[in-house]
């Protein structure tokens, strides 16, 4: 029931953008499912870039509107989410494998999205920040998207 969650709504937006990335909730499945066979029989690279959505990192309620939910009013707040994009960085010969356009494509798909599939009313999804971290030990490059959702609680 991925679509009945904020994660499901984000996944739907990313899939609709046609970027060819898998999207997982909280953590990816086992490494074996994501990577080619390890050397010496294979190259051990990721089969495809993938994303992980972690929702509910923080939820700050807005000041009371209409007396608050206990008085029948609406309650709104800002939820902090993180979206991680992992892709191959370089191969064993240091040939670059990273897509330089995919991170921006994800930003364009998400920034300002209204998440119509979300189970609650979402006023805005904003990308507040994005950082790029190279993981030399795994030969992956990690883009961490700092997302804030203004929504009804």
């Amino acid at each position: 029931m991925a679509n009945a969650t904020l994660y499901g709504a984000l996944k739907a937006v990313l899939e609709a953008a046609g970027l060819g990335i898998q999207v997982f909730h909280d953590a990816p499945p086992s490494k074996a499912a994501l990577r080619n066979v390890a050397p010496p029989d294979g190259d051990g690279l990721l089969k495809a870039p993938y994303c992980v959505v972690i929702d509910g990192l923080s939820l700050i309620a807005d000041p009371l509107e209409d007396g608050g939910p206990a008085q029948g009013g609406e309650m709104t707040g800002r939820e902090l989410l993180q979206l991680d994009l992992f892709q191959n960085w370089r191969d064993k010969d240091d040939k670059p494998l990273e897509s330089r356009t995919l991170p921006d494509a994800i930003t364009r798909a998400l920034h300002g999205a209204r998440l119509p599939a979300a189970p609650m009313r979402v006023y805005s999804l904003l990308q507040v920040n994005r950082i790029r971290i190279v993981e030399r030990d795994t030969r992956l490059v990690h883009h961490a998207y700092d997302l804030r959702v203004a929504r009804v609680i």
Partner: protein
Amino acid sequence: MISVDDRDFQAAYKAWLDHVGKQTRAGLRRYAEAVVEAARSHIHSESGELAGSLGIEDHLDQEPPSLEVGAFESGPEPHALETEFGTSHESPRPFMRPALLEAERAYKVDP
């Protein structure tokens, strides 16, 4: 020709600007201190190294004035970035981003 003596106005305006600047800096410091306190509450490591590295660097007397809040790690294996954003084999355990949001209410400029 009409001349206006605005020396009192200029003096009062400068005093007001000085007062607002002082109050704004005080508000910023309160916010930074609240961020550090909130960030510490989100760190659950046993060593206490990361929590102990949190601090504030004050550049309010520089141009542009600013406060730097964060983990000022000095050990051989800094791990604030990995803790905050996670890695491909470790989930993030953010402490700064929730703290920045939670401490927003501490930023208030007194009149």
